[in-house]
């Protein structure tokens, strides 16, 4: 979908912000650009929609070189969300969302119904918020509108630069969770810039870790954690390692029975019927342990059933044991391979 080929950006003042960067972002994945502040994440992102032009190298989007397209036309097909949102203060929420559709000359009715749909999608009641001005919204609500605006013309690619960076921790968590599930529904190619490793682990399928404009490693969160390409990658995650490991390992990773057979339930269930209290196998251990702490009952466990037969029952300490086993297994695999 997006292909960087030895892309370098040197600013007029001589700063090399991006240094010979090559990678491929696949269609439909959520791709994270991470690294310390000033490592070149924003510059890399802005080269995709040509807000910054590379000094050398090429960027292909959908197989055609980005420089061969008119920059404005290109940008209208790429959603763009930034930390400070940048809503137009003199426009209503609805007018803000309508920006790109208007540029694309959609008819009024289509724009109205689309903006209503989008407001609902980002969790804002259209009747209450359509006619409001941005300054009457909270930071979280503004970012929701910003997201709706980026999605308005249904662009296949969305670029996000620290979209949750300016929000308070509670709002941030909440929106992040919503966005995470939204992303799963809308099948878009998303490039997310963040300096928050937890965020990148929660949201991204694959990560690209940059340092000083150079790529250090590219891969899934687990790969970066358990198979670091160099010392920098290793030390980058060192201080949060345990938490990140829990965030990167999913329930299905640690089940005895592989290939995702059977069903998983909470026991005792929160609801009347056990069948209604299902656990998704792709939940991370972190979230499962967290939920275990939050549920009111004692002696909680996750039951694994295959064809109505219970083959596994995992309590808190069992989960941690399995997690340790999994890590050892990975390490062996790494040493062998």
């Amino acid at each position, binding site marked *: 979908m997006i292909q960087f080929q030895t892309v370098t950006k040197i600013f007029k003042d001589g700063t090399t912000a991006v240094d010979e960067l090559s990678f491929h972002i696949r269609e439909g994945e959520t791709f994270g650009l991470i690294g310390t502040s000033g490592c070149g994440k924003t510059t890399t992102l802005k080269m995709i*929609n040509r807000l910054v032009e590379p000094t050398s190298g090429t960027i292909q989007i959908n197989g055609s070189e980005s420089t061969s397209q008119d920059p404005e036309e290109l940008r209208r*097909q790429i959603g763009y969300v930034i930390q400070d*949102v*940048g809503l137009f*203060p003199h426009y209503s929420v609805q007018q803000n969302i309508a*920006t790109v559709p208007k540029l694309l000359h959609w008819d009024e009715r289509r724009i109205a119904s689309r903006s209503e749909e989008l407001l609902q999608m980002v969790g804002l009641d259209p009747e209450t918020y359509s006619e409001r001005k941005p300054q009457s919204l909270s930071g979280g609500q503004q970012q929701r509108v910003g997201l709706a605006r*980026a999605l308005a013309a249904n662009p296949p690619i969305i670029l996000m630069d620290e979209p949750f960076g300016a929000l308070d921790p509670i709002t941030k968590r909440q929106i992040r969770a919503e966005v995470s599930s939204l992303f799963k529904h809308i099948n878009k190619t998303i490039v997310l810039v963040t300096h928050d490793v937890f965020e990148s682990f929660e949201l991204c399928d694959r990560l690209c870790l940059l340092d000083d404009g150079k790529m250090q490693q590219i891969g899934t969160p687990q790969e970066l954690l358990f198979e670091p390409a160099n010392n920098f990658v290793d030390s980058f995650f060192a201080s949060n390692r345990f938490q990140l490991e829990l965030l990167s390992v999913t329930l299905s990773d640690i089940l005895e029975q592989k290939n995702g057979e059977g069903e998983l339930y909470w026991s005792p269930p929160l609801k009347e019927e056990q069948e209604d209290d299902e656990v998704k196998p792709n939940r991370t251990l972190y979230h499962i342990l967290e939920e275990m702490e939050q549920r009111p009952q004692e002696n909680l466990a996750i039951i694994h059933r295959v064809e109505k037969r219970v083959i596994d029952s995992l309590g808190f300490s069992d989960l941690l044991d399995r997690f340790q086993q999994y890590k050892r297994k990975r390490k062996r695999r790494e040493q062998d391979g």
Partner: protein
Amino acid sequence: MVDLWQFIVSNQAEILDQTIEHIGLTFVSLLIAMAIGVPLGLLATRLEKVSGPVLGAVGVIQTIPSIALLGFMLPLLGIGALPAIVALFLYALLPIVRNTYSGINEVETSVTESARGMGMTGGQILRKVELPLATPVIFAGIRAATVINVGVATLCALIGAGGLGEFIFRGIALNNSIMILAGALPAALLALGFDFVLGLLERNVSKFLKPLSYGLAVVLVFVSLYSVSTVFSQDQFRIGVPPEFLERADGYKGLTQQYDLDMPVVEMNASLMYQALDNKRVDVIVGYSTDGRIEAFDLKVLKDDKNYFPPYECAPIVKEDFAENYPDVIAAINKLAGKISTQQMTQLNSAVDHKGQEERAVAKEYLQVLDFRTEINRQGDPDILIGGKLQTEQFILAHMYRMLIENYTSLDVGLRSGLAGTQIVFNALTNNEIQLYPEYTGTGLHVLLPPSKQVTDSLGNDRDAVYNYVAEQSLQQFNIRWLQPLGFENTYALIMRREQAEQLGIETISDLADYLSADEIE
């Protein structure tokens, strides 16, 4: 208050005319400033390199005193509405350019960046995002420019552009506060009114933007047509007249009746007149017969063949009690009596106006030629203040008296020269704010005393008779003593370019009147 009302009612036609001229000057210059200032401010935001020079330049223009700016305009664009509009336009530029620049720059970068990121073109960002967001700031600049322009436009009366300044300057010259108010009050109301209207406009700017820009275009077309037409319609014979002369008893009205003169009048500042004549912006002026620029610009004083202008012998005047208390000062002053001829005074004036010498140096040199002492120059707190009007010779004379008094008495003298208008200087003298200034007998007769027409007719053109009458009456009425005359006369005079006068064979004012009436018949 009642007087003011009566004055306004009885002069309503003229006030209305001046108000319309005033609005015209303000608005036309403002619209041009908007049409040029907003794009200029935008340019500065786009090219950071030019922003410094552009903002600097418009800032510097703002620091030029308005009267000086009008003076610069004179040789370039002459007199009348065009140079006034250009000067006003230049003044209006700073607030508009600066506010456009800062208004656009104050738009948050996150807003413009997201606009760009969504695929808006530069023009779309400007029209849909930056300009709407900067509008309140730009409008504040336009409002400031309007208020400035309403004020500065009063000065445009000095270069014959009309407007409410005409009454203000005539009022200042005659020390007539009613007349000043009759000009100043409508000007203040105009400023408030414009500010209010612009405030309304600002709140509804989106609705007005289109009609406003069309209106702007129409006005610009008219202005350019108008200015072109004024530039090319200069074959008419015009006379430049200072405000004071228009209202004086021995002024313009009497002159036109006596000689049956008929020509378009341009009211303008006395000190700018000679230049306007030299630049062929007017063809005749009412000036002073001793002005140095007559020599410098090679001008010709027309002979007053019907003896319209009374004698204007120059003599220092003081309060009677001062004369009694300071006989030594009076003696020092009188050393100069009869020592300066009209021709000598003209040369002294010319040395200052044309050759650019300092008044002080010119005064000192002349006193030295006459063998007076000039070495002492006291710098302490003055015991005596010498006043003077805005004319060059009054400055020179003030310096001469200062040197004489400081060298021949033990007193310390200060100067208060350059006061605007006869009444102002005279009031300063009677109120003991100054102790001495040179006055002219004709002015004393017509401005200070104004006697009945019978009396002036009986005095006629007799120098001594006028001096004696004025001296006697001044003592009686104001307790003012006229000292001995200096020797020269500085009368009002009609002045033309020598070249043109000779070409047309005009020697006297009657010749001029004949020429004009013949011209009309053609």
